[in-house]
């Protein structure tokens, strides 16, 4: 996969720190959290904020991420901690967003009781649903790997990292309208790719 920008030296440095931190997690040494926070705290907070849009919620979410990370390693032994952590952060933040959204609905007794009922009655995703979900992820991943590096960067930054368009434009040194244009083109191609593979949106 072609990279938009490559900094092999930096990647090596990060890998070294990652290994050290993961080892600390495995030996249940709390310094692992301190180091992880020092290295990736800002990025974690940033992603939480992109998803939640609220400072207080993001801070709480960040704490949840550290707890989740502590519980996840071991058994996990990620080779690239940053990627692992970001995936965990995104999931945690989205879960929190769903809770926040639910809480902000009209708090009538009917809403509350229905939510409560739904929470208890809803089924875990079926095997079929899980399969479909995984397939969709794979289709999108495959599609992204075929994109030119810059387009892939724009897509990932917007839809995975939830970055504002203005920030992406600034990072790439282009105008926001250029970013919008690229996104529109990518979405059109993605739609075609999904439809060709039997996914109807």
């Amino acid at each position, binding site marked *: 996969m072609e990279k938009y*920008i490559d900094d092999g030296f930096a990647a090596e440095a990060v890998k070294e720190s990652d290994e050290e931190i993961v080892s600390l997690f495995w030996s249940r040494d709390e310094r692992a959290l301190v180091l992880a926070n020092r*290295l990736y705290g*800002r990025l974690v907070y940033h992603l939480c904020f992109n998803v939640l849009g609220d400072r207080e919620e993001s801070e709480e979410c960040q704490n949840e991420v550290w707890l989740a990370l502590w519980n996840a390693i071991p058994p996990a032994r990620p080779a690239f901690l940053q990627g692992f952590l970001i995936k965990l952060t995104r999931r945690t933040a989205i879960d929190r967003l769903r809770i926040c959204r639910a809480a902000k609905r009209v708090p009538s007794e009917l809403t509350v009781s229905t939510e409560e009922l739904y929470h208890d009655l809803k089924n875990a995703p079926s095997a079929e649903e899980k399969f479909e*979900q995984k397939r969709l992820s794979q289709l999108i*991943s495959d599609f992204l790997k075929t994109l030119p590096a810059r387009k892939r960067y724009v897509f990932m930054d917007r839809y*995975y*990292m939830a970055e504002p368009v203005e920030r992406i434009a600034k990072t790439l*040194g282009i105008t926001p309208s250029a970013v919008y244009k690229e996104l529109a083109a990518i979405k059109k191609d993605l739609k075609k790719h999904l439809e060709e593979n039997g996914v109807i949106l």
Partner: protein
Amino acid sequence: MNEERLIDALSELDDELINAHLEEKAALEGLAARRKRVARRTNKAVLASLGAAILLLLLLLPAALGKKDTPVLPGVSTDDPTASAPASPLPSPSLPDVSPSLKPPLSATEESSYMEPPTSESKNDDSPLEPDIFTTSWLEWLVSDHGDTYPMVWEGGLYGSIKYTEDMDPSAFEFMTYHNYFNLCVYMSSAEFDGYSSLGKEDYSYTWKVFYRPDGSDEDYESVEMVPWGAITFGDNYLYRLNLHDYGAKLSLKEDGSTQTYHFIFIILDQEGKIVIWQEELVDWTDSSQAYYEDALAAGAIKELS
């Protein structure tokens, strides 16, 4: 398929894609930050040149107009140097006398004579600290024991001592901040530094490395020029500043030459002049730095910690 499932599907993208994206993102954001800093410096330089050009024009224009309109008095020779005022030739403007920016550098004491300490209005200004607060005159005003009328700036001052050796792990004096804008003032004492008289002079070579960490990694760094504030009013101590924008930073000192010992006071201020984060446990506070700190207190340069 609903929106929620799409969100979940995106959350489960290939690790390879995510890892590659994070690496690229760090590198690109680092580049963007560098571009921004270079542009800022360039803009400042262009504005300064433009300002100087306008000043020059303003100076020359009245003089030029004055010559054109100069009446020649009847019976008075324009060649006569003793003739009355209008007959004198076009005066050559003395730019340095008018434009402070073109004056040769003044000592801190001289400079303070025409620069006023900040007023309460300047404190409430929304603009960043520069240049209202970070001026030599402000520091002189501060150390002349007016600090208590200027809240928050030195109050609860962050201080520390770092014994730096060449083989020292830079992370020993690492700090992180999540603030988007902050100023780090580094007050450097040369108290235990052999040959300290050359500290801060051009012939002394050292750099600060500021590691910008847009993604929390260490890789994107650049040397940041330390801007001397000039000698302040006690001892042979120097204050330097680094203005760090947009990112958290990891700071380390790289120095050419033999092992030295420095003492520092670190003050990290946000744009309102309030002190922000400091990881004090990273600082090695020694007896000698305690003595130094007390000297600084006695001299009125810093206030007692709250």
